[in-house]
């Protein structure tokens, strides 16, 4: 049975083509109809596919569709095909669903912007590439999507390309991603060399013959390279630096690409490659360590940022760290679960932030906000749900997913990771409530209507236009917020853990993806299963205890933020005074950008300038070309004199030539 899955990515591509090529002449309503229509129908078709998929017998999962051979080189073939299993189905629904909501929201947010059609064409092309990425049935096609979303991200970060900072942020994102992509490519080359294929089913089947690598080996190398690729796309240490800058793009872009979908591609890739990682414990450990470090590192930066979008950007990096933390202890299901809830609540956070920025005429600095609760009640309530969700209060979505990750960390014996994760969760709660209190409570600290919007930070949606008091956003922006709020509220219930009377449905749903390959390897799922050696009851009570600890951590963060930013708003300044250099150090993001600038970028720029440009390009290549041109000219200058136009001199040359030939023949002898 064919589900004709190719329709799903092709719908947004069609939308992008129509809007991108012809959209300039269309009125906004037509652009909306095309962009939203293609995304909505993609989502609707995805729902249909989901229903059909549920009805498939177990032996037909994964459902693979092949359409054409893409290329053949020797024994290597790559094809256009689609691989639908539980994992790609979840990703498919997230991408089309959240993507559609953000399209709707963008209609309101981008209303007053130039390049309206261009924006939607880019969004649609992003959807196309993201769907290619998650649906591909081989790594090469996935890589096409992987690069394509990078392109879309570049285009959208630099959407306001007249602004230098936006153009630079786009470049930074693209180049940083290239570093990761390079590693990913090498991983693919290794796969080709040793398995002769990039088709998922071929590679995964071949992998079952491999034992778990006790020491570093081929699979460890592939896993590590893949992780470098993932850390580029998913903004993990050491390649996370592009994501905060990516906030230069319009806020819906930040929500869709740099929070909900694209940045999770790395997590998806790691989860998809679980067959590799399960056999390479060293690479898996590196995934966990990188995730953990990123989670706490980014959360600590997020605690001091004042730009509302920057806080959310660091929060995204930190939450992605949590996902890798889950994947790193082979709890891929937990990682993907968090990916899903994160897509809901982080999209909601960003869109709410966008609504705030929209309502304040482009103000992004939280120090100039405050008291917005009464100006934008809908936004406030949506944001409140998102805030409590990300902080991890039950029974909201992220409570279940984050708690599952922490629990898997503990139960797999990685207590240090669990502890750091818990601290990061506390920080998460603190910075998000800090944002909440600074934005919605207290007095409005913005400027009066007359002189508003001359602020230095007014570089988003309405930059440059006069703006009155804060106002609520139009309904077209509020309704997506509400839907996402419902999802953030209830989205976690599908993964209700057994300890709370649920049945862990989400995990079991994904089980076939992660265990079909793992079962052949006894040691692979030690992590998740080790704890199950205990008695059922003992484990349940431990799990409940850990939930209490998680909630306690969230509550500490809440109380801390409440005390500092609601009760005693004078205290933060004093603490800053006391902390001195440390505070500015964290505020400057630990000077990582400066460090990279000095350690990597500057040497490269110097070497490029002095060796590659002035040395090789200007001297060698240009020199060779110029010299050969000048030499030709010199020779021609001399030879030109033969062409005198005087018949008798030509005849003379003929006679001379004949004489030379005759002399030669006489000298050599005629025969």
């Amino acid at each position, binding site marked *: 049975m064919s589900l004709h899955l190719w329709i799903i990515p092709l719908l947004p591509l069609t939308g992008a083509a129509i809007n991108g090529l012809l959209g300039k002449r269309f009125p906004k309503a037509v652009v909306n109809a095309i962009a939203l229509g293609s995304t909505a129908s993609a989502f609707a078709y995805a729902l249909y596919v989901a229903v059909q998929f549920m009805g498939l017998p177990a032996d037909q999962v994964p459902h693979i569709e092949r359409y054409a051979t893409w290329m053949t080189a020797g024994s290597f073939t790559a094809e256009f095909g689609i691989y639908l299993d539980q994992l790609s189905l979840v990703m498919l629904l997230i991408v089309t669903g959240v993507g559609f909501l953000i399209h709707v929201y963008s209609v309101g947010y981008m209303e007053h912007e130039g390049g309206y059609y261009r924006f939607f064409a880019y969004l649609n092309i992003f959807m196309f590439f993201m769907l290619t990425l998650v649906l591909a049935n081989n790594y090469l096609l996935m890589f096409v999507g992987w690069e394509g979303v990078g392109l879309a991200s570049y285009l959208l970060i630099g959407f306001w390309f007249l602004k230098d900072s936006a153009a630079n942020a786009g470049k930074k994102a693209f180049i940083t991603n290239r570093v990761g992509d390079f590693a990913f490519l090498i991983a693919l080359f290794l796969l080709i060399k040793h398995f002769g294929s990039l088709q998922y089913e071929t590679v995964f089947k071949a992998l079952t013959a491999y034992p778990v690598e006790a020491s570093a080996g081929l699979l460890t190398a592939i896993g590590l390279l893949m992780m470098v690729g993932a850390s580029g796309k998913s903004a993990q240490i050491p390649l996370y630096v592009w994501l905060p800058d990516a906030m230069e793009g319009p806020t819906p872009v930040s929500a869709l690409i740099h929070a909900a979908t694209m940045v999770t591609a790395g997590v998806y890739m790691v989860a998809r490659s679980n067959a590799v990682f399960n056999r390479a414990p060293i690479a898996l450990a590196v995934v966990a360590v990188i995730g953990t470090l990123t989670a706490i590192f980014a959360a600590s930066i997020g605690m001091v940022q004042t730009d509302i979008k920057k806080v959310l950007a660091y929060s995204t990096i930190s939450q992605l760290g949590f996902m890798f933390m889950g994947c790193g202890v082979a709890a891929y299901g937990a990682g993907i679960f968090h990916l899903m809830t994160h897509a809901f609540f982080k999209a909601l956070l960003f869109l709410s932030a966008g609504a705030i920025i929209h309502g304040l005429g482009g103000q992004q600095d939280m120090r100039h906000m405050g008291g917005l609760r009464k100006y934008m009640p809908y936004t406030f309530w949506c944001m409140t749900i998102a805030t409590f969700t990300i902080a991890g209060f039950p029974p909201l979505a992220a409570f279940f997913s984050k708690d599952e990750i922490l629990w898997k960390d503990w139960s797999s014996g990685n207590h240090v990771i669990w502890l750091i994760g818990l601290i990061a969760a506390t920080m998460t709660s603190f910075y998000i409530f800090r944002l909440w209190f600074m934005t919605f409570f207290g007095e409005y600290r913005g400027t009066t209507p007359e002189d508003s919007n001359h602020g230095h930070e007014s570089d988003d949606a309405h930059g440059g236009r006069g703006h009155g008091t804060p106002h609520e956003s139009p309904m077209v922006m509020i309704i997506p917020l509400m839907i996402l709020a419902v999802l953030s509220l209830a989205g976690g219930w599908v993964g209700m853990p057994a300890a709370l009377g649920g049945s862990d449905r989400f995990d079991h749903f994904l089980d076939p993806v992660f265990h079909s390959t793992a079962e052949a390897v006894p040691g692979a799922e030690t992590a998740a299963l080790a704890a199950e050696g205990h008695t059922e009851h003992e484990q349940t009570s431990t799990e409940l205890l850990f939930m209490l600890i998680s909630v306690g951590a969230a509550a500490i963060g809440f109380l801390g933020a409440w005390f500092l930013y609601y009760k005693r708003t004078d205290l933060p300044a004093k603490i800053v005074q006391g902390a001195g250099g440390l505070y500015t150090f964290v505020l400057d993001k630990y000077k990582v950008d400066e460090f990279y600038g000095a350690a990597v970028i500057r040497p490269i720029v110097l070497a490029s300038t002095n060796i590659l440009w002035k040395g090789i390009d200007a001297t060698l290549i240009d020199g060779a070309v110029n010299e050969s041109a000048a030499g030709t000219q010199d020779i021609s200058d001399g030879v030109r004199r033969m062409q005198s136009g005087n018949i008798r001199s030509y005849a*003379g040359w003929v*006679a001379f030539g004949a004489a030379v030939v005759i002399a030669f023949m006489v000298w050599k002898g005629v025969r």
Partner: protein
Amino acid sequence: MIPLSYYLVLSAILFACGVAGFLIKRNIITIFMSIELMLNAVNLTFVAFAADLRMLSGHVFVFFVMVVAAAEAAVGLAIIIAVFRTRETLNVDRVNLLKL
């Protein structure tokens, strides 16, 4: 019988005279005559070889050359007359309208 080499040397001398005349002279008529001289030097070679080797093809070739030379003379003289009518000179160095 006169040896073949005598004919060949005479022919070479005639040809050299033709070449020299062609290179040195400026008058078109003289140049034209020099060309005829070269042609006939070649003719002489042909005939000498033909007589020496007792083969008819040399003679036949001479007739070809003479026919071509006659045709060339007709066309060439016509051109010379035309040139003289327009330029009023027979100096080849001054027939240079096509030169840059």
